[in-house]
């Protein structure tokens, strides 16, 4: 056991970049999957719609920790040693895809049907209709809940520590093993998360209020 020094706190603060990087990459990956899921979920034919529903059900109906474990051990199974970093990124992306897909489905369906019909009657195909007419309008509806979900995603990255990836929580654990000051260390970790998440929560709330006001007019 040794005493806690200033450089230890610095170590903790620097571990934040891994939390942030993991959040950003999982958001990007989840965004791509989420967009596909949202489009499938709002498709006209049944097959893609049911597939999307099944995907969302499965990922929202099981613990994220278990999903991460399955990706981690599943990689080994097909001969790909993913390691903690890639498994965490992949697992979080798959999970975020389900939640973002569901949020964005709501946003797409929130755009009035007439918009889509008008675009079709102008002779636009599915791609251009979505890209130029529906999605830009859905974006407005989607921003507030998406920012709200980012809070969840940042918090979820903490689970990557269980796979052994050294992000903020794992850095805290390592530091705790050496110095045994759990109260101080984990409250510092909590404060750091709070500093990241709280502004996002506030932003989401403000965006939501603004949107509600726009609709009241």
């Amino acid at each position: 056991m040794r005493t806690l020094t200033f450089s230890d706190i610095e170590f903790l603060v620097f571990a934040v970049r891994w939390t942030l990087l993991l959040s950003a990459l999982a958001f990007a990956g989840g965004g791509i999957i989420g967009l596909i899921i949202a489009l499938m979920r709002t498709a006209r034919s049944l097959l893609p719609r049911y597939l999307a529903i099944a995907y969302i059900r499965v990922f929202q109906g099981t613990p994220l920790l278990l999903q991460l474990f399955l990706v981690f051990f599943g990689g080994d199974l097909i001969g790909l040693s993913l390691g903690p970093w890639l498994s965490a990124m992949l697992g979080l992306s798959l999970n975020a895809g389900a939640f973002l897909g569901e949020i964005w489905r709501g946003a797409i369906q929130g755009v009035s049907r007439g918009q889509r019909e008008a675009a079709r009657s102008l002779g636009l195909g599915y791609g251009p209709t979505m890209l130029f007419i529906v999605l830009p309008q859905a974006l407005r509806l989607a921003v507030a809940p998406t920012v709200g979900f980012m809070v969840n995603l940042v918090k979820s990255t903490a689970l990557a520590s269980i796979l052994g990836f050294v992000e903020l929580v794992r850095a805290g654990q390592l530091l705790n093993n050496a110095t045994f000051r759990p109260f101080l260390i984990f409250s510092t970790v909590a404060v750091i998360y709070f500093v990241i998440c709280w502004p996002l929560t506030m932003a989401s709330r403000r965006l939501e209020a603004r949107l509600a006001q726009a609709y009241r007019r």
Partner: protein
Amino acid sequence: MNYIFQFGEILKPVNFDELLWGMLSTLRLSAESMVLSLAFAIVGAMLRTSGPKWAQALIGAYVEIIRNTPFLVQIFMIFFGLPTIGLRLDANGAALVAMVLNGSAYTIEIVRAGIESISAGQMDAAKAIGLRPLQSFRLVVLPQALKVMLAPLGSQFILLMLNSSIVSVVSADELMAAAQDVQSRTFRPFETYIIVFVIYFVVSMLFQAAFALIDRWAFAKAEQR
């Protein structure tokens, strides 16, 4: 891919029973924390909406702190942090405390939204017929708010149950910890986790269906009146 799946080992009674026991522990832990969270949340939401200023601020701060930090860090604080200031809990105790602490913050917001959805006229009317504030809350506002709260409380329970897997990090008794035990005995992590995945999925689907039925039943009752 030349991996041979061997589910047989995990489906043997000695291992599978442990998983089923794990599921029962998970359900018990989730149910206990849901009931306690709801009890705290009703008091909390009451104070948050109509308590003294300092209580409103305190509960607001509590909700924000819990909702903006990871559950994993909260359980570490409770299991590893609290003993250093003289409060020692065993793994199961720490798990329950962490889940109630976490669940209450989310449930307070659900209950608050429920209470706020009831028009102020109801409170005024209750006062007019001579009910005391607590009585009007208990007899007039709460029963109506309960109907609004039913669906979000159902999803909250499922979230709570899925989140409870995280308490396995302090090896409290529940399904995820049982899974880790079984996989370390059988050396079959993937098969074990697949089976546990299915168990969680089936249970959460069953609860979802059950809550949908309760919801429908409650709303049918409400419309008859």
